[in-house]
């Protein structure tokens, strides 16, 4: 059994104007030391997915169904007390904005020691030694002086290194990183991503990387999920999805990147924008923006507007699309007749 297994996870937000279905039917697994990317645009539900793994969804949100299995435990059925032993200890998180996650009134050293002492029975001196070691691992220049500095004295790249050091503090099995480099500049982003990758490989730590940047996902992860309007629409090995995307949305997302077009030519845009979760279109949520809702004979495919697509296996990938399902069915029929 995999280290982390998510089955049919379903998250809702009970709002005054009615219930919003933020995540529908999310299933994936993560092996020890594996790196998984979750890609999607804003509002696709990728951050909700990350938070729900550790049951960090706050009211009015709640997990309405499904399970998160981690190393034999079901996280979403656990008590707060039990969860505290997992959070930060065996699964740690890195957030987007390093300034928001560090406590401005505590020195770096105090924050790190606090975290260690909350989970382990050790002396402050030992804790400080561990903290120093982790700061060295994230290649911060003069780590000893950093321990006594406050977050505002450090630059954005430096703060994100500290966050990574804190995430590694208790030697976790999995790190969940929610847009860890979005707030940083290109050259710093490359440095931090390389560092995170090195450390995960060295310590055999699993990584769940949430990002909107397909370039980062393709360089860092082994498998990926593509999310759209609260659902996973395609999942599989990163290389295969990037090189041969099956779902029309994934295709559109990749083709819309400026690097995929000839300079000066028009970019291949996806028309329209992502629907709001409280007002999803019927059938496949992507159908109003999809170029493939017509069948080969020019007639619209009724299933696209009426029926939510199920996952079909296409090679090593799973795709939720009626068009892909139809193509696979046709191919199978042809093979049978011949």
């Amino acid at each position, binding site marked *: 059994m995999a280290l982390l297994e998510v089955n049919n996870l379903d998250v809702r937000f009970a709002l005054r104007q009615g219930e919003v279905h933020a995540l529908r039917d999310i299933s994936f697994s993560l092996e020890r030391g594996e790196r998984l990317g979750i890609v999607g645009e804003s509002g696709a539900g990728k951050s909700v997915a990350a938070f729900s793994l550790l049951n960090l969804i706050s009211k009015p949100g709640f997990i309405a169904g499904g399970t998160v299995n981690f190393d034999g435990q079901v996280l979403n059925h656990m008590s707060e007390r039990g969860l505290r032993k997992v959070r930060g200890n065996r699964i740690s998180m890195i957030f987007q904005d390093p300034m928001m996650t560090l406590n401005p009134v505590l020195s770096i050293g105090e924050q790190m020691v606090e975290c260690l002492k909350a989970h382990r029975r050790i002396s402050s001196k030992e804790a400080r030694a561990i903290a120093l070691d982790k700061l060295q691992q994230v290649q911060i220049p003069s780590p000893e002086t950093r321990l006594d500095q406050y977050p505002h004295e450090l630059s954005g790249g430096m703060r994100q290194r500290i966050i990574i050091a804190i995430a590694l503090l208790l030697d976790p099995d999995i790190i969940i990183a929610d847009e860890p480099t979005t707030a940083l500049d290109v050259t*710093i982003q490359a440095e931090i991503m390389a560092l995170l990758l090195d450390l995960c490989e060295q310590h055999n730590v699993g990584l769940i990387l949430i990002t909107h940047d397909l370039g980062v996902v393709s360089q860092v992860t082994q498998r990926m999920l593509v999310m759209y309007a609260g659902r996973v629409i395609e999942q599989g090995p990163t290389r295969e999805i990037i090189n041969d995307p099956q779902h029309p949305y994934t295709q559109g997302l990749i083709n819309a*990147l400026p690097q995929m077009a000839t300079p000066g030519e028009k970019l291949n845009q996806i028309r329209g924008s992502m629907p709001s979760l409280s007002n999803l279109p019927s059938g496949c949520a992507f159908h109003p923006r999809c170029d493939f809702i017509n069948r080969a004979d020019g007639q619209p495919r009724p299933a696209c507007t009426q029926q939510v697509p199920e996952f079909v296996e296409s090679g090593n990938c799973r795709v939720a699309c009626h068009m892909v399902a139809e193509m696979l069915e046709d191919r199978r029929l042809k093979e049978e007749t011949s």
Partner: protein
Amino acid sequence: MSAHAEAMTENPMPTPRQNEESADSLLQIRDLKKRFSLSGDFLDQLRFKGGKLVRHQEYVHAINGVNLDIKRGEALCVVGESGCGKSTVARTVMGLLTPSEGEIRYDGQRIDNLSSRQLLPYRKRMQMIFQNPYASLNPRMTIQQTLEEPLRLHHPDWKRPKILEKVEEVMHSVGIDPDWGKRFGHEFSGGQRQRIAIARALAVDPEFIVADEPISALDVSIQAQVLNLLMEAQQERNLTYLFITHDLAVVEHFGTRVAVMYLGTVCEIATTATLFEKPRHPYTQALLSAIPRLKDDRPQHIRLSGEVPTPVNLPSGCVFHGRCPHANSRCKQEIPLLQTQDDGTRVACHAVEEGRL
């Protein structure tokens, strides 16, 4: 148009063009410097030092001597990391900030020292699109009002039917439904808002548009839509762009020429194709190698050590020497100047000049 002619005669010094080479330039920026004071007002600046009262002033040196020429009909992209002064350049060009030193000429006329009344005819010819469409639309105005406002200001003689006609035309040209006119900014998504901001900029038929990170706040699929719109507008209206961005992939697609900035100075200017094929400046090389690509077939990226120094205490010599893998003692002392290479690229680097690189 009378207002425009008036402003031309009012201008005290119709200065001659500097040299023939820049005759086709629409906009010329010469030795532009911009400092922001960090020290507050006069009383805040007073300090006791050795028993004496001294005045202590500290500045952020946002731009330190930038020279740029923007040619008619081109899209000049300015790229760099945060804090390099690219947005300050855009704002100074538009007259939203006054330069500390240097000159800005628009169509041969100096515009940096004009009063806001004298600047009005130029404002009609140059328009700006801002980064954040959530902040750049007035929340208390309907879309119709937002689009009418620049027309009323710049065409005081226009009657209402003419203004309405023009608003509808510009809405069509950027793909907004004229029915949206009655609604307010908050009712729209980021991409739609940015379309409205573009429509507002195009309403007065400008010839020059300054776009400060117009797509960075948008999602990938929406970025492509807005970028396409900007490119269409350029073809139809023969616009000139000053395009500020940190995204090199966008530059490669959109730009005619690229200026790379680092810590308030331009370190390399080249045509887009040349820059991407043969980056000369070590910083440009590092920047290009840091873009995450989908299909990676390039050699390992160049890792820069350290971080961008603060623009408060600028390093001596070349501003990049602290992070540069090719720096020597000359780089630490002497500020490199932009020098033209045989293919027209201009690079400010001692190593390139000496042939070490």
